């Protein structure tokens, strides 16, 4: 019944069903009702980790080393225990940066470096090709074994079969066709393949059910349960050894190494990254996968050891390859349907792996290897090409074909030398080289592009030398002399015992050296310099922290007019327009045309393009339409230290605000002062006007009367002319004093400063007023006023003050009984002069006001019946003069008991400082008024 055509038909039927599922899921996704937006689907799709290596190889490894197959599944379990720290962060970073592959992730992290993306791609392709070869080998072997039913014949080695009769070639071709159908039907900006994920989830179910079916059949169909198998195994010494693992340090070391290796492989293998990170619909699905994916691994491994033991018991002597026990045990019991189901399960495991792996690799090859090269070749003129989306798909299709071709080539050349598990481990060791740059890049901001390049290169070279080349040599493809004797016959360079390191298996040996070199170069070279602008920016985006949110990706702008055609060339115009419209909608705008030409739009366009051609190429393409202004070192500092910068700005702002408030208050105060000054000036001018007009009024009135009436009698006429003369004198005096005051106040007065004897000035002033005192019958007395009271002053100005004070006093004392006393004495520091009268005195509230300009009238009329004569400028002028010489002038008075005007001047060093004695000068006679005012 199991003729070749039945198997082929079943295979195609199965693949057809898978494709139908994928097609349906894509359709659902297009109408926005995703089939895969479900945590269970996500967890199941992660089962792509389990390939034919698991399906067939685990049993083989269990037959060879007992429980030793298990670490490969314990590692991923432990990885998912760290999901909250690693996977969750990777998904978040990948989503915000539209990361399309592991190469894109690394390139983007280290400053969007095309070189780095290319290196990761090369390592991934070279590293994973053996793994793809493994799938081809498994599928073609399982087909050959099943086709020979009911005989159980191990297939001939691949090299012995002519090329065109090699089923593995046809398997490779069919898988390539299906992968192209699944993965490159259209170009999606997000680089997500909903249909593929749905198909992978179904495949995971199929292979799990198939394996469990075999397990149940073997344990309960062929034996009486697990206990029975173990009991039987214990009786056969050769089998019993597999019940425990080798109890040596090296064995435990290998065990630990494998856990560690598989932990990283389940994260860093291109297909794992694709499914776990790129195809992730919603980061919250991760929490279900945290336990569901390990549970899947647990279930698929549950029967591995029992099946392996049963196979060994059933096919003693090693005639049947342990890798085929899953298939050959049902065949041996003529379970055709189960055998076919197992074959489909194996096919499932192989196709799932190949499809996802090659799609991931082809994306990397296209975005990080081919496109950057093509875009740099000016002769192709691609940079100016109108629509590149077709070219992108074409490149990916060819990449898929070439990758599978290389896989087949490896299978032909090296595949036969190794068991399935060993081939897989070579790939695991290759992708483990990504671990330092990926994990370091997520948590360490100091990593640089140079460090990443150095680390990856060093690790890759050592991997090639210690693992890949020996695998070629063991296949006879290379002379194997260098394995035994070292390169150039140097013992220390033996690839599997490098620098004399022995006692380790080849995988552990490779990992020790390659990861040591990788990590050392990555950290060592990174520490050679601080990250540059772009690296620092990307580091902040990836490593994160609170400050990552506000970092601008671009420092310049470009409009929709530039960016939309650019995106259209890679995505197709319709898709690009749709994406731009969505972006506009998200920003609350009505349409594409309203999108402002800002940095956010540029970042959006770059991210959109990154989804199609990878971040590094996207950056180059966007840069071609946007002339980015270079970031200055200041901005680098901003980015590196955003948070503290903001704090500093806030502080500065607060300070500025406080200064502003203070300045405003000062301005307001100054303004008020100016207003007050303006008002005072207004009042002053108004008062001056009044003072000038008053004498003018008399002069004009009397002049007109004299002019009009010539018949005025002589006595009248003489009186009128006298008034005119005295008013004219008053007017002149007023004008002089105003000018004087103006000079004093503006500081333009001329001073002749010299040592002056105050007593001399007092006597001289008194002398000049003797006549006036005599006229009013006022007594003038001296108290002290001895010579030798020397001050530094202008003698004439000091005289002006003395005359003013004396005439003031004279004005206010009653005629006849009036008495004015002038006193002068000195202390060590100053000379003090007093002019005391027995006049009416000055009210307390007026004692300061009288020193204001024109403040005569109202202030003193309470105690005066007559309006005092004078300009009201004498005291202000006197005070200005005294203060100019650093002295003080004030009044001491009790109303009704006279007033005393006092001034002090700083004493000039060198005078005798004698105590003055009393002196009296009598006054008498009559005369006209003197200059000065009572104020």
């Amino acid at each position, binding site marked *: 019944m199991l003729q070749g055509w039945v198997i082929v038909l079943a295979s195609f039927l199965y693949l057809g069903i898978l494709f139908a599922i994928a097609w349906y899921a894509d359709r659902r996704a297009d109408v926005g009702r995703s089939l895969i937006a479900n945590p269970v689907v996500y967890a199941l799709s992660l089962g792509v980790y389990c390939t034919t290596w698991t399906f067939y190889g685990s049993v083989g490894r269990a037959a060879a080393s007992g*429980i030793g197959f*298990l*670490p490969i599944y*314990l590692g991923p*379990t*432990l990885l*998912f*225990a*760290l*999901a*909250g*720290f690693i996977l*969750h962060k990777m998904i978040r970073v990948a989503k915000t940066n539209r990361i399309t592959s592991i190469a894109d992730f690394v390139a983007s992290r280290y400053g969007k470096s095309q070189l780095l993306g290319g290196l990761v791609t090369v390592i991934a392709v070279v590293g994973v090709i053996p793994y793809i070869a493994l799938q081809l080998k498994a599928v073609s072997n399982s087909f050959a074994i099943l086709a020979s039913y009911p005989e159980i014949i191990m297939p001939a080695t691949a090299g012995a079969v002519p090329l065109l009769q090699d089923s593995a070639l046809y398997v490779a071709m069919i898988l390539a066709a299906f992968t192209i159908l699944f993965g490159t039907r259209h170009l999606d900006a997000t680089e997500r393949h909903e249909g593929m994920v749905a198909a992978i989830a179904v495949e995971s179910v199929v292979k799990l059910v198939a394996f469990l079916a075999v397990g149940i059949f073997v344990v309960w169909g062929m034996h009486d349960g*697990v*206990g029975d198998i*173990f*009991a039987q195994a*214990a009786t056969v010494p050769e089998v019993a050894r597999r*019940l*425990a*693992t080798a*109890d040596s*340090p090296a064995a*435990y070391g290998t*065990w*630990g190494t494998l*856990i560690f290796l598989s932990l990283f492989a389940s994260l860093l293998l291109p297909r794992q990254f694709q499914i776990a990170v790129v195809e992730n619909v919603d*980061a*919250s699905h*991760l*929490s*279900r996968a*945290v*336990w*569901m994916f*390990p*549970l899947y691994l*647990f279930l698929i491994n*549950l029967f591995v*050891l029992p099946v392996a033991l049963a196979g060994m018991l059933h096919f003693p002597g090693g005639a049947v390859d342990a890798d085929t026990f899953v298939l050959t045990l049902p065949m041996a019991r003529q379970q055709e349907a189960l055998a076919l189901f197992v074959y489909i399960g194996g096919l499932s495991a192989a196709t799932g792996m190949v499809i996802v792996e090659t799609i991931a690799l082809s994306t990397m090859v296209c975005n990080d290897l081919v496109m950057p090269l093509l875009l740099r070749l000016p002769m192709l003129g691609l940079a100016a090409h109108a629509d590149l989306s077709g070219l992108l798909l074409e490149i990916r299709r060819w990449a898929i074909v070439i990758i599978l071709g290389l896989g087949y080539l490896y299978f032909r050349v090296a595949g036969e030398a190794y068991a399935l598990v060993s081939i897989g481990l070579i790939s695991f060791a290759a992708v483990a080289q990504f671990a330092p740059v990926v994990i370091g890049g997520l948590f360490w901001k100091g990593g640089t592009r140079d460090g990443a390049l150095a680390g990856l290169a060093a690790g890759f070279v050592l991997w090639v030398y210690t693992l890949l080349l020996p695998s070629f040599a063991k296949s006879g493809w290379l002379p194997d002399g260098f394995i035994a004797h070292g390169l150039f016959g140097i013992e220390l360079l033996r690839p599997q015992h490098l620098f004399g390191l022995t006692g380790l298996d080849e995988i552990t040996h490779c990992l020790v050296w390659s990861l040591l070199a990788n990590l050392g170069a990555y950290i060592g070279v990174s520490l050679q310099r601080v990250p540059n602008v772009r690296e620092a920016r990307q580091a902040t985006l990836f490593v994160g922290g609170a400050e990552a949110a506000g970092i601008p990706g671009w420092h310049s702008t470009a409009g929709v007019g530039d960016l939309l055609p650019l995106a259209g060339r890679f995505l197709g115009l319709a898709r690009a327009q749709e994406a731009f419209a969505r972006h506009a909608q998200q920003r609350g705008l009505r349409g594409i045309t309203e999108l402002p030409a800002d940095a956010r739009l540029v970042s959006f366009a770059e991210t959109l393009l990154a989804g199609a051609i990878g971040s590094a190429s996207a950056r180059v393409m966007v840069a071609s339409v946007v002339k980015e202004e270079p970031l200055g070192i200041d901005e680098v500092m901003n980015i590196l230290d955003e948070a503290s910068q903001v704090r500093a700005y806030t502080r500065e702002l607060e300070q500025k605000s406080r200064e502003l408030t203070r300045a405003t208050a000062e301005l307001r105060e100054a303004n008020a002062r100016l207003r007050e000054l303006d008002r005072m000036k207004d009042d002053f001018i108004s008062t001056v006007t009044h003072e000038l007009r008053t004498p003018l009024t008399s002069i004009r009135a009397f002049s007109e009367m004299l002019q009009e009436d010539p018949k005025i009698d002589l006595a009248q006429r003489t009186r009128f002319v006298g008034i005119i003369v005295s008013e004219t004198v008053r007017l002149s005096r007023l004008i002089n004093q105003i000018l004087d005051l103006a000079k004093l106040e503006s500081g333009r007065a001329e001073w002749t400063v010299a040592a002056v004897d105050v007593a001399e000035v007092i006597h001289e002033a008194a002398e000049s007023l003797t006549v006036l005192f005599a006229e009013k019958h006022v007594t003038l007395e001296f108290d002290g006023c001895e010579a030798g009271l020397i001050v530094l002053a202008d003698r004439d100005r000091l005289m002006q003050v003395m005359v003013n004070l004396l005439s003031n006093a004279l004005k206010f004392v009653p005629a006849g009984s009036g008495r004015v006393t002038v006193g002068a004495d000195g202390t060590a520091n100053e000379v003090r002069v007093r002019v005391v009268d027995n006049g009416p005195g000055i009210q307390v509230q007026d004692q300061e006001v009288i020193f204001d300009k024109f403040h005569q009238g109202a202030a003193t009329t309470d105690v005066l019946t007559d309006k005092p004569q004078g300009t009201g400028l004498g005291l202000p002028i006197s005070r200005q003069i005294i203060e100019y010489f650093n002295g003080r002038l004030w009044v001491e008075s009790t109303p009704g008991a006279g007033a005393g005007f006092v001034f002090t001047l700083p004493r000039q060093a060198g005078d005798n400082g004698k105590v003055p004695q009393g002196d009296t000068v009598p006054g008498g006679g009559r005369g006209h008024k003197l200059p000065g005012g009572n104020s």
Partner: protein
Amino acid sequence: MIRSRLTAQRLAFLFLLGCFFFNYPLLSVFNRGGDFFGLPPLYAWLMGSWLALIAQMAWVVESRSD
């Protein structure tokens, strides 16, 4: 939810526990002959502790999600 720091830390604790369970020296304790309810002790220990760990992980993430 994994986003919760407490959940992430509980899971990380289980990671450390798993590293201890699945490695030397604990493995050497079980790596011997004899049987444990008809199973080899090492096999029983690894499958048992693995399942227990998965159950713990499920409890940690699922008990938080509602």
